[in-house]
């Protein structure tokens, strides 16, 4: 078996009286789609925040490609090639769709205006943004210069997913990317995930949608009460088993977790 590309050992994160991560382990293999499932409040989002530098764990280690890393901010993680869609979406409400998609990696005009006046190439950014949104089937966005705060819940999520996928890199993390999306748009996101995988980039997918998880995942990490309960192979277990494990209705046999 190859070495994991992204690994975490014994992560702990406490918020006052609340324990969000309780000595949690984690492994992502190269090129795979790893689904993370678990109850609400199980600590899934906290786990991926700890992996992507948005939260600094109280204890535990994170390893990327066999090297110990210590991300102090999401920017660190991004520079190491980890791209994330957070559950809260991380968008600036008053800015436009294109502004948000290119935040931190804006395109500049070619030639003098771009080089010396550092002028943004708005037409190019808008065209790119429109293209990515159409790829996701978000056809109801009438005005690409709309402020993000005026978008519907699903449109907003679509923009965030489009951003992460467009700038694909070493690892892509998606925290419930289809929660607010419609049937068509969800479908397109799943296709997009497959597409990214075929480019060889591994993906972490958090989702409560079991059919989707079982459709795309190579392995499923089941999270319960702040720690990894077990990792299963979607071929070996049924959805019912997975749900029973994650809610605590059934206990998995002890395996090397």
């Amino acid at each position, binding site marked *: 078996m190859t070495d994991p590309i992204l690994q975490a050992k014994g992560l702990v994160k406490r918020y006052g009286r609340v324990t969000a991560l309780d000595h949690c382990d984690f492994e992502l293999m190269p090129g795979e789609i790893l689904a993370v499932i678990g109850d609400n409040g199980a600590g899934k989002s906290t786990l991926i925040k700890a992996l992507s530098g948005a939260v600094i764990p109280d204890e535990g280690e994170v390893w990327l490609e066999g090297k110990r890393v210590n991300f102090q901010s999401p920017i660190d993680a991004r520079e190491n090639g980890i791209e994330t869609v957070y559950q809260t979406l991380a968008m600036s409400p008053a800015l436009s769709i294109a502004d*948000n998609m290119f935040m931190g990696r804006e395109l500049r005009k070619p030639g003098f205006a771009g080089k010396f006046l*550092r002028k943004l190439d708005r037409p190019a950014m808008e065209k790119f943004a429109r293209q990515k949104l159409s790829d996701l*089937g978000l056809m109801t966005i009438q005005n690409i210069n709309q402020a993000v705060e005026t978008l519907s819940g699903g449109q907003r999520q679509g923009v965030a997913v489009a951003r992460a996928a467009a700038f694909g890199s070493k690892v892509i993390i998606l925290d419930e990317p289809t929660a607010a999306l419609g*049937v068509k748009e969800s479908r397109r996101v799943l296709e997009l995930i497959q597409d990214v995988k075929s480019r060889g980039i591994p993906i972490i997918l958090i989702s409560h949608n079991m059919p989707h998880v079982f459709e795309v995942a190579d392995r499923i990490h089941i999270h319960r009460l702040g720690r990894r309960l077990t990792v299963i192979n979607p071929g070996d277990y049924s959805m019912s088993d997975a749900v029973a494990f994650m809610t605590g209705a059934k206990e998995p046999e002890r395996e090397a977790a």
Partner: protein
Amino acid sequence: MANADNYEASTRGGSADALAEFDEHDRGLIGRIHHILHQTPAIVPLIVLVVAVVVFGLLNPNFWRVSTLSLIFQQIGIVGILGCAQAIVILTAGIDLSVGAMAVLSSVLMGQFAFRYGIPPTFAIVLGLACGAAMGAINGWLVSKMRIPPFIVTLGTWQIWLATNYIYSANETIRSQDIEAQAAALQFWGQRFQLFGAQVTYGVVLLIVLVLIMAYVLRHTAWGRHVYAVGDDPEAAELAGVNRNRMLIQVYALAGLFCALAGWVMIGRFGSVSPSASTGVLGNIQAITAVVIGGISLFGGRGTIIGMFLGALIVGVFEMGLRMAGADAQWTYLLIGILIIGAVAVDQWIRKVSA
């Protein structure tokens, strides 16, 4: 997964992939005006401004003389530059109470560098500007790295710069005549040229150029967009890859530089270097007033620098107009208070109707 497909497959074909379109509905004249106002909210203060100019001109015809109008520009020169500093800080959801103090201290430093230590004027000015930027950077460092609320930081540094200013200068004014004789460069922005029969000072030109540059930077560069993003939702901006701390330090330092520039313009305008200039005490509230009347949100992330400029002009026009109409000082304050509220109320009302 098989069951998923049996309905999810039906999302292709037909008009599913066509972009949504609606007929543009007919608005009528009023509707169209509302629509224009709503699309470009910066027009609203412009209208307030034009109305004010017309009314004051009717009250006292002297008001319409080109010289009076050019005087208004001169009078808002300093507040306008401080307003540029304040505007970028407020766009990041901060506030800078120390702008006026930084301006006065910088002007005192320029003057003292030239007179106390005999540093050549141009060099003294450069040093003064650098000190301004450094003061701003200290504000920025305290806000970003130490995570102290901007209000507290700049409340503290306001007092610190102001007291430093009094102590360091020993409350001594450097007289205009001396500056003219020995360090004329300090008075550079006070020089004037003729335009349409009115005197225009270089300081006014500087203000207008600065506003235009900042409007461009905020609108058309990545840095400008990051300023908005940081103010809009700092956490989101950080998660999306904006280096919040670096942005804040840069913004506050730039604000400090603008303040030092305002300090230099002050020397040009008043001739002398005076540590007790009331800009040190009142500059912040004046700049904030211009910013807020200009429609920039104190919660950050919304508004334009052009709005700030118009806000400063509105206040300048009201003050001059009321003075020329013969209102005495307390009545002027009272009426300006009413007019400030009134101007913004009109603005709100137009936006509401058209929304």
